[in-house]
């Protein structure tokens, strides 16, 4: 059973001005997160990611649909009953949201105070958590004395103090530099592996998804437009918006501008080959070109790795060494040999002729 499941959930805000139309922030979203998953939700600003994640712990109330946490529908629960639900769901924020008036230890202790845990237990748990995030020596410091990365580690310690089964991370690394981002992501990976906490990660950074998520949903204009294993979505995005995200981390297929530049430099035929997992034997593909005496030059592309599986696209400029004088336009004489090779390569992988 999914630990978090949304069924046909929508969130509609009343119009901003009189006579205006309703603002649909979340549009009929269904989503299932299995226990132990690190589930990434990605989308551009304004896609509705932050609203969606706030529906999970009911900081925002949905307009319609069911929101099941461990099978319990929380969509209609009154505020008072939601408090117990929220104790089982930790949350970390982009701006950390630590209490500036409290020391690091008192911040981590806060959820335990809310849960009315006895003092001895609180002290013990705070020490454990600060140890886990590597900030035991900062227990008495105040948030404004910490760096951004340290603040987020305190945020993580606080979010996990009450031993929730679910952790919501709302752009948790977006205010951090790349190096600190990876420290925090490593920590989140440990949280998932060592404590078995299910993590829902909201981000606009594909890099974050690539590093820690196992599944991903792509959001656009309040809808989930694509979802699946990170590897599948990265290696073969179906929607234009997903493809745009993927292209920010994976240099794949050249866009029209880049293609124009390539065209100018390479008068011959240009093809893009897809490589996915180990299903495609690169050595055999290139062997075919070499055997046929077709010259090839890698002019664009990249191979990436997600969860230990590699994928990517390589764009080749081809030239027939034996027929240099022949015209190179497709279909004309002298390109038959190239066509013949491409036919053989097509049995090995996907070939896209780029014009």
């Amino acid at each position, binding site marked *: 059973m999914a630990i978090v499941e949304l069924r046909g959930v929508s969130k509609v805000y009343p119009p901003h001005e009189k006579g205006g139309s309703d603002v649909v922030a979340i549009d009929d979203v269904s989503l299932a997160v299995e226990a132990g998953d690190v589930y990434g939700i990605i989308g551009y600003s304004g896609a509705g990611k932050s609203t969606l994640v706030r529906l999970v712990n009911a900081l925002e109330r949905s307009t319609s649909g069911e929101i099941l946490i461990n099978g319990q529908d929380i969509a209609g629960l009154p505020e008072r009953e939601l*408090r117990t639900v929220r104790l089982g769901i930790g949350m970390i*924020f982009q701006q950390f949201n630590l*209490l500036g*008036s409290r020391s690091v230890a008192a911040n981590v202790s806060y*959820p335990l105070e809310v849960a009315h845990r006895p003092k001895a237990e609180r002290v013990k748990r705070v020490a454990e958590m600060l140890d886990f995030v590597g900030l035991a020596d900062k227990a008495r410091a105040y948030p404004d004395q910490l760096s951004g990365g340290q603040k987020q580690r305190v945020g993580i310690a606080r979010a996990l103090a009450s031993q929730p089964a679910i952790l919501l991370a709302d752009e948790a690394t977006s205010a951090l530099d790349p190096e600190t981002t990876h420290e925090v992501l490593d920590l989140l990976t440990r949280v998932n592996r060592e404590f078995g906490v299910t993590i829902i990660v909201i981000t606009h950074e594909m890099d974050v998804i690539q590093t820690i998520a196992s599944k991903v949903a792509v959001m656009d204009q309040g809808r989930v437009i694509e979802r699946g294993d990170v590897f599948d979505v990265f290696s073969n995005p179906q929607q234009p918006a997903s493809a745009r995200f993927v292209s920010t981390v994976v240099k794949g297929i050249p866009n029209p501008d880049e293609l124009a530049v390539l065209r100018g430099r390479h008068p011959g035929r240009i093809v893009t080959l897809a490589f996915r997992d180990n299903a495609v034997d690169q050595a055999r593909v290139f062997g075919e070109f070499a055997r046929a005496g077709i010259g090839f030059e890698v002019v664009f592309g990249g191979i990436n790795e997600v969860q230990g599986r590699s994928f990517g696209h390589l764009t080749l400029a081809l030239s027939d060494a034996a027929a240099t004088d022949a015209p190179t336009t497709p279909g004309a004489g002298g390109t038959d040999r190239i066509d013949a090779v491409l036919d053989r390569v097509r049995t090995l992988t996907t070939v896209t002729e780029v014009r």
Partner: protein
Amino acid sequence: MESLIELLPQLWKAAGETLYIVGLTLFFGGLGGLIVGLGLYLTRGGSLLANKPVFVVLNLLVNFVRPIPFIIFLAAAQPLARLVVGTGIGNNAIIFTISLAASFAMGRIVEQNLLTVTPGVIEAARSVGAGTARIIFTVLLPEALGPLILGYTFIFVALVDMSAVAGYVGGGGLGNFALLYGYRQFNPIVTWAAVLLIIVLVQLVQYLGNTLARKALRR
């Protein structure tokens, strides 16, 4: 100068009365201000207890009372004072009226200070299951404590100012002393002695407020 020395016992008595009036009005007005300020803050759109009608009424009430010059407010509120404390004149009546006026002035200051608390911090508290009352006492007030202390220091000075007018309705204090023995007797030295005492008092309290605020802000 000799007359001032003769008047010293009255001066100390007046100073004591000022402290008495200001102390009590700081307590009652401060408390009232906290309630009005919290009311404004909590019922504002998007806040924890968002309630437009309550906010609009409260907001209107504050704006209605605040611009009234205090000496006129003193006269206008006299029937109300008679109703609540049983008399329209004397120290107790003026303590009531000052507290009332201060509640609305302080309410605005409290509201402004609470608005400086980042909404994210409140959201973080809600996300761990904290209820509204707990958020008020463990997040809102502690997070805004530094500016709140400065706000209360500011209102203290206003209270001293208001208490000086008390003489007009039979209240005591340094204002009354300066009017009675200084201004009406054409004795500027006596007037200035009272003024000096008020200045020293204000300086001391401002220093105390700054120190406490610095401590709360840890700067």
